[in-house]
């Protein structure tokens, strides 16, 4: 019983990173139609930026949770204006080439500057140690990650369902051409939406910084799992991204606990099973052409 609770929290904490990053991926895909293969690199940049901030300016985790997403938002805006905007008119193949190429570039730049050995990151003392719940000592940091991520997902969900901006994002995602014919300047939302998606990946990176090894390559495995997450949840679905993220986190944690050799494979077995039963993913919509 205590094991189950422990693995559940561990899985949900790991799932938090996936959920936040997948949320960004889903929103970007919805509005831009761009599958952002550089999302893992943006996640890595989030963690690296947090580590560099702590090392050089002593800006700790609390401020990093605010500052790093803002920096990544700015970076996302620049990347969109400079590069991604040209994709919108091109064959999807270029989408892969550009975002994958960007990943290689960012990863190598970080390697050149900070090496391959991993940067240290110390979390605030208050998040050290364990918290007793039902007689089980659970790592405080995992609980913090979990609660913080759920809160962020909830805020994003409220914005998406309760505000005019959210309504426009949903309409542009579902039928971009119709949204334009109804007088909505879809193009105006493209840049901020991309920036926002990148900021979410960066936020996931900051949360992962005290928890995972901070290296230039940390986004490489992450992006592969992330695509399993969005396929399971349904590409472009916001709820699907979050549910898929937590689900994959759980599968990973229980897999590592009970069948470590198969932990990664299990995720893709789950993905295959979902695609067989629901090709558009758990919360995806079938294309109505």
């Amino acid at each position, binding site marked *: 019983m205590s094991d189950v609770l422990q693995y559940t929290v561990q899985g949900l904490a790991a799932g938090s990173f996936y959920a936040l990053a997948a949320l960004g991926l889903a929103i970007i895909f919805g509005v831009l139609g761009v599958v952002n293969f550089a999302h893992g690199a943006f996640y890595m940049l989030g963690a690296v930026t947090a580590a560099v901030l702590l090392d050089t300016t002593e800006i700790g985790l609390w401020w990093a949770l605010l500052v790093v997403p803002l920096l990544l938002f700015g970076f996302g805006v620049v990347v969109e204006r400079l590069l991604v905007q040209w994709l919108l008119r091109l064959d999807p193949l270029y989408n892969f080439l550009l975002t994958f190429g960007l990943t290689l570039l960012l990863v190598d730049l970080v390697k050149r500057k900070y090496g391959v050995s991993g940067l240290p990151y110390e979390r605030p003392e208050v998040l050290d140690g364990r918290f007793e719940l039902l007689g089980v000592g659970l790592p405080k940091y995992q609980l913090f990650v979990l609660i913080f991520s759920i809160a962020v997902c909830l805020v994003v969900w409220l914005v998406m369902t309760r505000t005019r901006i959210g309504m426009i994002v*949903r*309409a542009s995602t579902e039928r971009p051409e119709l949204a334009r*014919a109804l*007088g909505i300047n879809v193009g105006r939302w493209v840049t901020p939406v991309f920036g926002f998606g990148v900021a979410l990946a960066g936020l996931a990176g900051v949360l992962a910084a005290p928890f995972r090894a901070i290296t230039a390559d940390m986004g490489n495995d992450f992006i592969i799992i992330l695509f399993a997450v969005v396929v399971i949840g349904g590409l472009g679905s916001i709820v699907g991204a979050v549910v898929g993220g937590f689900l994959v986190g759980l599968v990973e944690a229980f897999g590592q606990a009970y069948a470590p050799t198969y932990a990664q494979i299990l995720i893709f077995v789950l993905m295959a099973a979902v695609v067989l039963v629901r090709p558009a993913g758990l919360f995806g919509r079938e294309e109505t052409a």
Partner: protein
Amino acid sequence: MLEVEKLSSWYGEAQALHGVTLQVREGEVVTLVGRNGAGKTTLLRSLMGLHKQTEGRIELRGRDVSRLPAHRRARAGMGWVQDDRGIYATLTVEENLVLPPRVSDRAWSLDAVYDVFPVLADRRRAPGTTLSGGEQQMLAIARVLRTGASLLLLDEPSEGLAPVVVARIGQIIGQVKESGVGVLLIEQNVRFAATVADRHYLLAQGRIVDALDNDQFVARQQDLLEHLGI
């Protein structure tokens, strides 16, 4: 109010519209009649600015809109109801209604919409596509009326609907016309077209082959049914 001059459209190499010239006046209902593939939907999409390969002049209320992107044509007063009604599944009925911005003083208030379409008021919180086909058509029309569009482009509003719903849509088109809005309507249902429209353009292979007033249209109804295969 709408002046179209020598409008041509292409799909790659294939020309779909050949120099279409037509007018719609204020408070006038005009239909586009023709076989499938004659270019009716392409014409409406070209007017709306959704078809890129288009040449020719489109004037709306004296303003040349032919270079404007779709969202600015909508803001200039064009209201498009596409053939599949275009109701958003991820938006509620009310969100579908309030999504497009208001473009003129003619814009209907939400209360006015709910007065005329009580079923939309009852289902305001439901996802748009949970409505029946007829209700979705009402919602699509109500959505462009709420913007205050001065020209409605309706792509087969009667298609697949029960006669009682078609009659209701006819009444609404009549009301809209009274308020001075121009309506350009694609219609395969010749009887329905004859009851709502003032004039008719016959479209064949991307060309306007005839322009008829409603009396001529009614007189030739049988002939049209046979020869146009509509």
